[in-house]
């Protein structure tokens, strides 16, 4: 391994490759900040450039830089504008955006940068050590386990139910699940609930829905409730994180790097599930006082998904490099690029072309480091976006929201859907319904249905629930995650009434 490391370092540290990684990080960060352009589209744009370089190591190093930059850039728009451009950064806006509204935008971005760096770096260390051994773990999961994992992911909504809105959160989750059924189902070759509209045939677009649920209502809310704006003048009061805060998020980063990485290794899960689960788990194990902070600008609530999604992105390289199986849309595009460069990922990659394998791993370290070094000094300037007067900022947000929904699909109908849902979502927001559960339900609903349908077909019914112990275990875990908060709340209430329960 030491030998491999040296090969990788030698390749990655050449002047040309260092320039590549810096260029990649910068391009990725700046394009990634535009809502609607996630890592997948940016990498797709960069692939012709990378391929024309001809050298697989240099090309991969450039693409890895773009990838990490794009993920970081995506969190920036989630945190500053509540406009998540990819599903993996939706969870980052739960606490990141409230922090930004409290004038802690700089701090939020710093936490995001450090968590991303730690998640990515720890993930890369795990990848380096365990990649060959983990390829078999990636194959342990069948459709039924993926289904159960999605159910565990759904339990993340319990995090929003804790604030006395159980019924509302459930209702919104179910609405999200219903919306996920629009379009063609994987098992039934028929369009459902499309009302004959061709644009609905493949269902609602994620970006459209994310913008309609988060960014648009936020902008409209600011216009409609002018008075509340006096609270945040755009002053950036806190930039650095204190020692106490660093101490608080350190264990979160440690746990989520591991958890995120292992979820990322599974080819059917990925960064989205990892970020939701990371958020849910951290909330459940936090103390009562900290739990109340979640959703209102908790630093742990931001550090958890940011760490988890970066670790998961790194983890998704395990099945790609060792089995040639792309676990996500982004790795599928990377696989295409590798093949175009005459590198065939798979069990033989480490033996046949060790310099490519190690160059990728070294580029992950360098990419993460460069990103941190480049971005930390830039954060005050990026955060300045918020000090733009509201009457200029809001049209700006609206413009990027609409543009994001349009360029994702190149389809003007998306704009109509966006505006219609955005208005509905604003009404729901006024009625104090949480919108995040709807989006979680929508994102997980489609994957959940596909895996459930496949399992049903493979086992001629629901027998897979008890025939596969791992499925059963995950489902039990989901039930615990849902019940635990309400149980705790109940106990706390009883204790408050003086009915002590023994402890």
């Amino acid at each position, binding site marked *: 391994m030491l030998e491999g490391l040296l090969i990788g370092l030698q390749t990655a540290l050449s002047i040309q490759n260092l320039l590549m990684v810096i260029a990649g990080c910068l391009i990725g960060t700046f394009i990634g900040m535009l809502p609607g352009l996630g890592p997948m589209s940016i990498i797709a744009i960069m692939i012709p450039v990378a391929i024309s370089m001809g050298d697989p190591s240099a090309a991969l190093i450039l693409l890895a830089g773009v990838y990490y930059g794009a993920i970081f850039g995506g969190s920036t728009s989630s945190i500053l504008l509540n406009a998540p451009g990819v599903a993996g950064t939706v969870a980052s806006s739960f606490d990141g955006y409230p922090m930004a509204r409290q004038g802690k935008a700089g701090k939020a971005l710093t936490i995001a940068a450090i968590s991303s760096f730690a998640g990515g770096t720890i993930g890369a260390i795990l990848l380096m050590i365990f990649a060959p051994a983990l390829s078999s773990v990636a*194959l342990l999961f069948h459709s039924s386990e993926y289904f159960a994992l999605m159910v565990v992911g759904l339990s993340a909504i319990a995090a929003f139910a804790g604030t006395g809105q159980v019924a509302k959160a459930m209702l919104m989750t179910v609405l999200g699940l219903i919306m996920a059924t629009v379009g*063609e189902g994987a*098992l039934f*070759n028929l369009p459902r609930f499309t009302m004959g509209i061709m644009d609905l*045939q493949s269902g609602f677009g994620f970006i459209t829905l994310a913008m309609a649920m988060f960014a648009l209502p936020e902008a409209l809310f600011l216009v409609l409730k002018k008075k509340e704006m006096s609270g945040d003048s755009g002053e950036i009061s806190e930039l650095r994180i204190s020692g106490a805060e660093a101490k608080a998020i350190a264990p979160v980063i440690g746990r989520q790097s591991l958890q995120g990485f292992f979820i990322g290794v599974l080819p059917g899960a990925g960064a989205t599930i990892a970020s939701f689960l990371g958020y849910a788990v951290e909330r459940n194990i936090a103390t009562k006082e900290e739990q109340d902070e979640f959703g209102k600008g908790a630093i742990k609530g931001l550090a958890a998904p940011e760490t988890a999604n970066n670790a998961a992105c790194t983890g998704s390289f395990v099945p790609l490099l060792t089995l*040639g199986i792309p676990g996500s849309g982004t790795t599928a595009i990377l696989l295409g690029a590798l093949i175009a460069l005459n590198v065939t990922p798979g069990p*033989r990659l480490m033996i046949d072309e060790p310099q490519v394998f190690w160059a990728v791993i070294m580029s992950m370290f360098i990419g993460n480091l460069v990103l941190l070094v480049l971005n930390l000094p830039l954060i005050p300037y990026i955060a300045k976006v918020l000090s733009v007067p509201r009457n200029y900022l809001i049209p700006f947000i609206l413009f990027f929201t609409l543009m994001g929904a349009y360029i994702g699909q190149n389809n003007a109908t998306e704009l109509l859907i966006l505006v219609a849902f955005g208005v509905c979502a604003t009404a729901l927001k006024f009625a104090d319904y949480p919108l995040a559960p709807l989006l979680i339900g929508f994102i997980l609903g489609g994957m959940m249905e596909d895996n459930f349908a496949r399992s049903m*077909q493979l086992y001629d019914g629901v027998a897979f629930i008890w025939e596969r112990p791992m499925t059963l275990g995950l489902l039990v875990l989901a039930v615990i995650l849902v019940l635990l908060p309400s149980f705790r709340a109940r106990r706390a209430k009883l204790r408050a009434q003086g009915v002590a329960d023994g402890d």
Partner: protein
Amino acid sequence: MTTLKLGRRALMTAAVAALSFGAPAFADGHKVLDKVHFLIPGGAGGGWDGTARGTGEALTGAGLVGTASYENMSGGGGGKAIGFLIENADSSHDTLMVNSTPIVIRSLTGVFPHNFRDLTLVSGTIGDYAAIVVGKDSPLNSMGDLIAAFDADPSKTAIGGGSVPGGMDHLVAAMVMEAAGKDALGVKYIPYDAGGKAMAALLSGEIAALSTGFSEAVDLAAAGEVKIIGVTADERVSAAPDAQTMKEQGIDTSFVNWRGFFAAPGLPEDKLTMYQDAIAKMYDTPEWEEVRARNGWVNIHNSGDDFQAFLEEQEKAIGDLMKKLGFL
């Protein structure tokens, strides 16, 4: 003054270029088209994507086309791109849409309201056989083994694929089992929405075999991950000389998934001729031969009316099969 001169010269060059558009008046002598925009009805990395990008690479590499651009527009099983091309026909004269056998299957099942007759048929360019593969550690080594396993326990011998039920991968699996004298409707077909997930399912043992395109199977076999147990070609294919055909194993069936290009309805005749001309010339270039060999494609060139006749014939054959199998 200099800038003005330059500007005028540039303008004049542009004007001349525009006038001589498509005519063989360029320095390299054999350029047929200035630019082609490829519309790909599926995501990056799929079969359509590879065909469009490979064709574009050969066309530009050989100097037959100046520049090629690509656009992925997935959705509605390809119906979205077809709808888009028809809706924007007047502004899409530079666009070539790649498509393949599914356009026939999906218009039969009514996934989208259009069929190939609503578009301008340019050329069928290549074909890809279908293949049944198993994981590298699978105890199955031939179609005979797979059929024996199917006979022993049909419900535990699921075959997966990357298309929806009633789609191409499913049809191939059903066709092969039907030709082997088994009940095609008894085949448990499990659909996966992406090739990667289907591969993971095969390697994890969730499915016994995978129905997929031959060129994809060759890549997977070259990476040492799968064994090809049957190819739907009439004779063995040079890209994988060890892979047995179905016919060799006593299963009398063959199938070719064609791929080809369509243009917007109402495309001017001269433009259509240019496209067909460029594609016809492409076959003799070394650039095309390199792309073709790399992907294991088979040249099947059908232009214009031949393409129409070919599609109508396939529509009938597949329609009959689907009716027999109960998909229609």
